[in-house]
């Protein structure tokens, strides 16, 4: 079993991030800061209609504008047009319509791209797109998923009958479980559509590299390595001629885990015209063009005995694909299908998901990808079942959760959770929260009929991180693997280059990865340079998403660092004139067992390897270590989040008064970074619960096209979070770590909604639509009053 890391070195220390001085001083290299001489600026003509046939595109007006160098529609782009690829057909019969970079026949969502203009500067390009004349023949728009599947609905793609992309089934046996149950509860939840909301909008620069065949693409992406493969497959540019660089990237949250049409267009036209091409999106473009997330209708049934033992769960989902399939659109809801059981034991689990096309922006992964939806459903259902049984919601959870001595435990969904200690995390959270006083206050407010009611929201969640092993991904028909790579090189001066295949965009990998290597090699953190996010300098990798970077990439760092020591050992033995086995390694130096005075540092060995004047026979003049690790299994962080929620019953306004998050992410490399991830994640999950939501009208027009209408909370809207961690190391990961990038966002949404419903349950409220805006809360109260009357 993996030990709790109690390192004398730098693992586990809350070191300040190496990255921050540069960020705070503005010495940053965002894609839009990259100036390539002679660059053409690209602007896109986007559809104002959700669904229409393109009758005619007239580029002549734009071509006549000053500064315009070229303009294309799908017809004139011809063979340079290429498809955005989906790498996850989830079933043998998943309908996979083509998604061309420029659409020629029809537009299928507001923001779909009909034409592009290239000009010598950004302003001229923007002026010129207004001069492109497109003649549309409007078609009925398909917006609502249930309408989309009704007979007679217009079709987004002719190949997708009933607008159905796929139907996926897992598990079974629910009917038998329900037949034995004392209570069966059914609920419908709507997990609304959201945007990723990264701070830095997307940007692309594509440039031919002089007289060579190489094309370099700088992109604000999370996935330079995966992008290189899919762009090569899509455009036919030989992979070896394509270099992808993700420079400083200002947030992603899954929204930059994508292959975007703008990347294809910039690359193809830069190659074709032999000139660099640059594009930078506006926030308004981002709202229609960067993929959206969530958007599921969840029909959930839970069957239980009257003393609260869960017998079975039945999950039936409609998942909105949007108008096209992007990189993992169909698979995103399925990333949640194993997590609907949460931390609970049950006999039967049955799951069905139907993917539905609509005339809306494509959906794909956003922070948590499938798991937030699953966690929301099970944690809401636990509260509903507790209310149905008249039981305390925490007591119901305690009766059903996997106890710490029962691990490893195989759930009804078929996953084996390696470790966990839900009792410990919950006990700590309750201690920090002051549950008894809050319940007493809740009682007082109820009795006095206070217009502001108090609710207590619980979320005892788990999730799966790492998206590996590759074999499992293959069984799910996902095209790529789940491994990660690291190379560590000792430089002649004793400094270290650590090359990782992860691709940070705000997470602090440079600091955390240095800490791991420093701890193992005994070389100071500041002497370690982390190289990443450039396929020219860090050629192997699977990038950053799904809380995989530490969970998978961290293991590769450990293995590579261990190999450095092993590769240095024969040189040390040669210098110290002893057998390799007679050496100890500690604090960056080898010493002879029993004679610690005789020692040599790694730094000295690096020079010895470089000069190569006196190496043992058969030893190559270089000290490095490389490792590619495909993990044994997923990792399963968990935690207990508790929220005290005030609901103003007269206005519907909700205030999160206090929030306690106790997470168990296994061993922590840098607790301050963990803390930051928890804070950001919790804030984002609260955003979904209370503020955020993409809305369309019946014609498919986007009503939330700017951040004035799509509301994202700021610090002023959130309480000061109280956080802590319990540490139950993962047993399937060599560092005992789990993953923390998504946990907060997964946990907090149901905690908030459970709190609101808890506050209002005496009024007869059993659910409230997200986002729980004043109007949605007020309507839930009015509906309950109406039903009660």
């Amino acid at each position: 079993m993996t030990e709790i890391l109690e390192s004398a070195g730098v693992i586990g220390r809350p070191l300040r991030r190496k990255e921050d001085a540069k960020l705070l001083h503005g010495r940053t290299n965002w894609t839009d800061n990259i100036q390539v001489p002679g660059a053409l600026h690209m602007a896109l003509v986007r559809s104002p209609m959700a669904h229409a046939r393109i009758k005619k595109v007239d580029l002549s007006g734009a071509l006549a504008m000053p500064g315009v160098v070229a303009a294309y529609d799908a017809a004139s782009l011809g063979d340079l047009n290429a498809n955005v690829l989906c790498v996850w057909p989830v079933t043998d019969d998943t309908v996979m319509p083509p998604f061309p970079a420029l659409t020629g026949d029809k537009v299928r969502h507001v923001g779909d791209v009909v034409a592009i203009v290239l000009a010598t500067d950004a302003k001229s390009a923007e002026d010129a797109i207004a001069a492109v004349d497109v003649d549309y023949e409007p078609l009925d728009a398909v917006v609502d998923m249930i309408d989309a599947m009704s007979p007679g609905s217009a079709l987004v793609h002719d190949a997708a009958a009933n607008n159905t992309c796929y139907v996926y089934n897992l598990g079974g046996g629910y009917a038998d479980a329900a037949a034995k149950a004392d209570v069966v509860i059914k609920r419908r939840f709507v997990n609304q559509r959201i945007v990723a909301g990264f701070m830095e909008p997307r940007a692309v620069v594509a440039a031919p590299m002089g007289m060579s065949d190489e094309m370099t693409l700088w992109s604000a992406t999370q996935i330079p390595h995966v992008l290189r493969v899919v762009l090569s497959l899509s455009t036919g540019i030989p992979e070896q001629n394509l270099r992808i660089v993700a420079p400083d990237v200002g947030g992603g949250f899954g929204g930059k885990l994508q292959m975007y049409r703008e990347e294809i267009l910039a690359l193809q036209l830069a190659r074709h015209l032999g000139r660099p091409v640059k594009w930078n999106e506006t926030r308004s473009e981002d709202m229609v063009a960067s993929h959206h997330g969530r958007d599921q209708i969840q029909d959930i049934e839970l069957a239980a005995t009257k003393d609260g033992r869960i017998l079975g769960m039945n999950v039936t989902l409609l998942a909105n694909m949007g108008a096209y399939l992007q990189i993992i659109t169909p698979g995103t809801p399925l990333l949640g299908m194993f997590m609907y059981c949460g931390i609970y034991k049950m006999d039967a689990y049955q799951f069905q998901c139907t993917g539905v096309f609509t005339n809306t922006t494509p959906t794909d992964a956003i922070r948590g990808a499938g798991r937030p939806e699953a966690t929301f459903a099970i944690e809401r259902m636990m509260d509903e079942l507790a209310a149905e049984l008249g039981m305390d919601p925490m007591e119901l959870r305690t009766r059903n959760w996997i106890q710490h001595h029962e691990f490893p435990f195989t759930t009804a969904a078929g996953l084996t959770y390696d470790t966990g200690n839900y009792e410990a995390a919950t006990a700590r959270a309750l201690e920090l929260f002051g549950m008894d006083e809050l319940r007493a206050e809740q009682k007082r407010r109820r009795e006095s009929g206070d217009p502001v009611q108090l609710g207590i929201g619980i979320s005892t969640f788990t999730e799966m991180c790492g998206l590996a092993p590759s074999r499992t991904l293959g069984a799910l028909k996902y095209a790529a693997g789940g491994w990660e790579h690291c190379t560590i090189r000792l430089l002649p001066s004793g400094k270290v280059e650590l090359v990782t295949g992860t691709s940070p965009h705000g997470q602090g990998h440079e600091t955390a990865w240095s800490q791991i290597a420093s701890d193992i090699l005994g070389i100071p953190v500041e002497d370690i340079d982390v190289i990443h996010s450039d396929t020219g300098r860090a050629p192997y990798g699977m990038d950053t998403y799904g809380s995989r970077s530490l969970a998978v990439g961290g293991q590769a760092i450990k293995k590579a660092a261990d190999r450095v020591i092993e590769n240095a050992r024969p040189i040390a033995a040669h210098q110290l004139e002893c057998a390799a086995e007679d050496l100890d390694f500690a604090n960056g130096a080898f010493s002879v067992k029993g004679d610690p005075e005789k020692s040599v540092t790694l730094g000295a060995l690096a020079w010895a390897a470089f000069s190569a004047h006196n190496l043992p026979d058969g030893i190559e003049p270089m000290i490095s270590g490389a490792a590619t690790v495909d993990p044994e299994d997923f990792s399963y962080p968990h935690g207990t989040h508790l929220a005290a929620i005030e609901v103003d019953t007269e206005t519907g306004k909700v205030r999160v008064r206090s929030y306690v998050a106790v997470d168990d992410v296994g061993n922590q490399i840098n607790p301050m970074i963990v803390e930051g991830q928890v804070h950001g994640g919790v804030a984002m999950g609260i955003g979904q619960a209370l503020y955020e939501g993409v809305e369309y009208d019946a014609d498919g027009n986007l009503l939330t096209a700017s951040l004035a209408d799509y509301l994202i909370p700021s610090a002023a809207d959130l309480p000061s979070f109280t956080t802590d961690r319990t540490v139950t190391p993962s047993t399937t990961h060599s560092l005992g770590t789990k993953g923390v990038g998504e946990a907060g966002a997964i946990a907090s949404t149901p905690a908030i909604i459970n709190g609101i419903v808890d506050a209002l349950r005496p009024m007869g409220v059993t659910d409230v639509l997200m986002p729980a805006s004043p109007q949605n809360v007020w309507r839930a109260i009015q509906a309950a009053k109406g039903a009660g009357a």
Partner: protein
Amino acid sequence: MIPAKFDYVRPSTVDEAVAALVAGGDDAKILGGGQSLMPVLRLRMGEPSVIVDTTRIDEMKGITDAGDAIVIGAGVTHDEVAKSPLVREHLALLAAATEHVADRQIRHRGTMGGAMAHADPAGDQPPVALAMGASFTIAGPGGRRTVPASEFFVDYFTTAVGPDEVLVSVSFPKHTGWSAHYEKLNRTAQAWAIVAAAATVRMDGGAIAEARIGLTNMGPGPIRATAVEQALVGASTMAAIAAAAEQAAEGTSPTEDIHADAEFRKHLARTLTKRAVAKAAGIS
């Protein structure tokens, strides 16, 4: 996004500004703090040919005591208004409402004149001007004129200021000794009001002697709830305030958007009016 091309002039007097507007024709636009105009330009929802920047006109700056009124230059920023001792002493309601405008950065740029001339139905200051009986001094090619608030706000984003005119200042009758409260319901801290109620009252022996009530975002422009004002006279209990506030939504036809339908807005108008008055009067 990048605004369309425009010419730019920066006059130093009101007369020069008017001349620039006349020369610019229908397409000329005044730039105040730019907090509403710049988004319009960047989204290309407007493409004026000339921008007349009024931020360097001395006459439009400053807050002065004019005896029975406080005169606020159109170029005074929200931050200056909210912090002004004169405003705080004599126009407590204006100070209270202005503190709710947007966030600190925007309050340091946005101006009294811009907010009034823009006339966003969700703007926090227009209902205060209406309820307190402010008057607006407007300069145009034919000279200056003064317009009462009741005639200034015409429709959605439309005021009595003509295309070749400049709003120079706003004069608020002093309400010295009146207490005030601005009750705003918005979704996030920096967002516009879904609905807000502006209340200022003069108390006499524990009862309300006089009240002025304005409503934000309950129609195409600011609304003054005169029926509530009258019903409040003599009120000294929460029950009396609540009864008076029941009339707050009467005769309103609020807009519907993703944040609220008309029914919810009317409900909010009643609830927020009750709360604003109670807090202004110190009655609970």
